[in-house]
């Protein structure tokens, strides 16, 4: 029996777990997949938006601005890659100029600090490589980029260190309530609690309706991306957005904290959690990106992927207690700017819980995380580390210069990786230009040994994604 069960371990669920773990209460997090951050959180632009975009007075505006303000310090505490690079909305026409003027005003109303309207010259000083015909831009100095899955993993790791029970591979199938106690049935087990925090992302309406009435609907919106080589990453200094128009929001061209360039997303309503990329959408993104930057070399693309944003039919975040189920708190419809808002949304869940009863802060709790990133260390630090543990002297991922020591580290972390991609999200191994062509096999063999599994149980990512089928000569011929 737990006090609180959080359903979903994306950025919202993980941040909620992190903040609540500082209080005297027992908490479990239920997650369908074999890792945290395996849904929307792992497939987005990685932007910490400044907050000029949401409508004033909306929950999006409130949590975006607050999340943006808290991001830097939080990422520092958690050793999460974060870079305050700033963002531009580039205007190409007179209408665009009007639009960015409106965005500027909206940003002021939302309480965004350090917003500036720039002319062409100032714009090009910040971002030399831009397509022709730039009229001006809206510069948001507080805009930042972050490693989205590291962010969620770090929050979850600290939560686990503070005693939160993380139950991976637990897909919620049914919820019942009797005498104030919820019973949650998953594909694995049954769990009981007094409060439910619904952070189930794309499935948050489904989860809510397992026990409550229909109060909102989640519309899955797929967005596709190009992730380009670091050669291209050098071309982009800050997040570049297109001026929103009737045609849509356009696509963004952004740097990533890993030094790559990311281009996307489009927005396409889909039936279910369909994560396929399509030739049409990729073509559209490529074309649309030329408006921002016409010198992107798509031959240097290293990966395409799609993410699903959980847009609600209310057009805003849904952060409220269910009207039909008492003690059931929905954190739903957290579409963009959800990554930015996520940390602030989780921070305020305690406010609601404390309207129910009085939870007090723990005497001792962890709020920081340490992580060794070998390539960021100084000459002397590197040698000190290798002297202590020679595994740091062996490179496994040669594109991203990730050492065996760092990979072994994550197996002794609070949430050990269960797949090759889980190692990638924790260490960057396999994220580079060869896309694990070289290190995939080495990581696979480490996984096999560390998890003590058979070769045909090694997973690339989610359940079922096995990478090896047979031993040589044991196939059907």
């Amino acid at each position, binding site marked *: 029996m737990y006090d609180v069960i959080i359903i979903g371990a994306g950025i919202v669920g993980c941040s909620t777990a992190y903040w609540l773990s500082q209080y005297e209460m027992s908490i479990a997090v239920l997650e369908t997949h074999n890792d945290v951050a395996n849904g929307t959180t792992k497939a987005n632009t990685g932007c910490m938006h400044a907050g000029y975009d949401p409508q004033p007075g909306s929950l999006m505006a409130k949590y975006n601005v607050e999340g943006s303000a808290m991001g830097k310090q939080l990422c520092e505490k958690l050793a999460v890659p974060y870079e305050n690079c700033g963002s531009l909305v580039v205007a190409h026409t007179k209408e665009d100029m009007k639009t960015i003027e409106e965005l500027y005003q909206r940003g002021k109303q939302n309480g965004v600090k350090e917003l500036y309207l720039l002319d062409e010259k100032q714009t090009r000083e910040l971002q030399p490589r831009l397509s022709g015909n730039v009229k001006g831009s809206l510069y948001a100095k507080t805009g930042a980029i972050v490693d989205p899955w590291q962010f969620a993993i770090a929050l979850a790791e600290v939560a686990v260190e503070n005693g939160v029970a993380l139950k991976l591979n637990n897909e919620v199938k049914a919820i019942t309530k009797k005498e104030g106690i919820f019973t949650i049935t998953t594909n694995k087990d049954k769990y009981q609690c007094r409060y439910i925090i619904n952070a189930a992302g794309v499935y948050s309406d489904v989860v809510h309706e397992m026990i409550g009435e229909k109060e909102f609907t989640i519309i899955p919106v797929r967005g596709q991306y*190009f*992730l380009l080589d670091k050669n291209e990453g050098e071309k982009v200094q800050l997040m570049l957005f297109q001026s929103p128009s009737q045609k849509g929001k356009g696509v963004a061209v952004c740097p990533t904290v890993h030094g790559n360039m990311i281009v996307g997303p489009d927005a396409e309503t889909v039936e279910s959690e369909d*994560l*396929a*990329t*399509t*030739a049409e959408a*990729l073509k559209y993104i490529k074309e649309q990106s030329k408006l921002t930057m016409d010198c992107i070399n*798509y*031959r*240097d*693309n*290293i*990966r*395409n*992927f*799609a993410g699903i944003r959980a847009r609600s039919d209310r057009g805003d975040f849904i952060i409220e207690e269910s009207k039909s189920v008492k003690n059931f708190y929905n954190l739903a419809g957290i579409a963009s700017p959800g990554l930015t808002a996520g940390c602030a949304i989780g921070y305020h869940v305690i406010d609601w819980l404390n309207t129910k009863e009085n939870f007090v802060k723990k005497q001792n709790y962890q709020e920081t995380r340490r992580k060794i990133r070998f390539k960021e260390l100084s*000459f002397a630090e*590197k*040698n000190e580390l*290798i*002297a202590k543990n*020679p*595994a740091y*002297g*062996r*490179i496994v991922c*040669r*594109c991203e*210069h990730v*050492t065996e020591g760092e990979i072994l580290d994550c197996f002794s972390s609070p949430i050990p990786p269960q797949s090759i991609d889980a190692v990638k999200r924790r260490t960057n191994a396999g994220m580079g*230009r*060869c*896309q*694990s*062509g*070289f290190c*995939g*096999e080495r990581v696979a*063999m480490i996984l096999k040994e560390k998890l003590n599994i058979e*070769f045909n149980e090694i*997973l*690339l*990512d*989610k*359940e*079922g*994604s*096995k*990478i*090896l*089928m*047979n*031993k*040589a*000569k*044991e*196939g*059907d*011929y």
Partner: protein
Amino acid sequence: MYDLIVIGAGPAGLSAALTACEKGLKKILVIERDKEMGGILNQCIHNGFGLHLFKEELTGPEFAGRFIEKIKETDVEIMLDTMVMDLDENKNVYILNTRGYQKIAAKAIILAMGCRERTRGAIATPGDRGSGVYTAGAAQRYMNMNGYSVGSKVVILGSGDIGLIMARRMTLEGAKVLACVEINSYSSGLRRNIKQCLEDFDIPLYYSHTITDIKCTNNRVSKVIISRVDEKYNVIEGSEIEIPCDTVLLSIGLIPENELSKAAGIIIDERTKGPVVFENMETSVEGIFCCGNVVQVHDLADNVALEAKKAALAACKYVSEESSFERIIEVKANKPISYTVPQKIHLPIEEKLIDVSFRTNRVLGNCVIKVADSGGNVISRYKREYVIPGELEKIKVPVSLIRNEQNNITIFIEED
């Protein structure tokens, strides 16, 4: 301070180090990131190596073995399990291994890091993202070094040599290879590999086709859609063929490893993706030479070893003598020649012949390769029965003919 540091202990690095040693260079170090010498040859267990160099047919490991045995008898220092993290134009080499992170330096450097495979991203193949999509070389390593098969029903995209070789390997090890799909109307692999890796096992090769969608079930590949393309690679609608399978192997090209070349400030040729080189395999940074697939993707390991000899001789010369050249001329290429190696020539030089190698971007029948001086006068001709993109074409240009050239020479092809 070393006389020579060779980065990489594959066929290029080992051949270079051996040559330098034979030439009497004293302090030679070879740095290899793997736990053993041999490089990619260790996983190329098929035969077909050594016909030029040793006049007998060897497998990859046997070919590597010849060099490894020889080098073990020399004083060449071999540093295994060691990664070169950085390189600068002053020939400082930053290395990492279990003994620490350190800076070492040499009078001359030979880059021999080889190449890497292009991935799904490079061609932006759409579809689901489960497991079951591998570069052919990655699957080759799982199979030949670990003894594991990545799948049982396989479609190969691209007809590069590694893909063709893997078609045979997967078949011999118990998988069904259902198709090899090539976007061009010709293969980029060697003809004999099409013969003995596909035709021997009745594996269909679809020319002018590509994979247009990859579908997964339960996060593993379950089928691919292949479609016909026109000459401009546009997908022809209605030509789709659905092939249920569990594995896709990509054999869609190789790219020189150029991180260290770039780190040292070496000028890169956008066409080869490797360093711009002189006739002696020197890069734009004096004293840094390169050879093998780090320069251009070769068709045969034999040619890699020969190119490495040339780089090593030049490195030895660099260490012991002042350079004496007066000027530099450029080697230009006209379509359908995609590029040439070398891209530049020092003049004057002692050598009598300059090897120029190149690839074309299409198949040519009976044709004449011509070399013209900067005045447009054809100075030498080379007849060929055919020139195909899968094979590296080579000509030897007599130095006597370009002795007085001041600017450039141009290589072009005329079809009969």
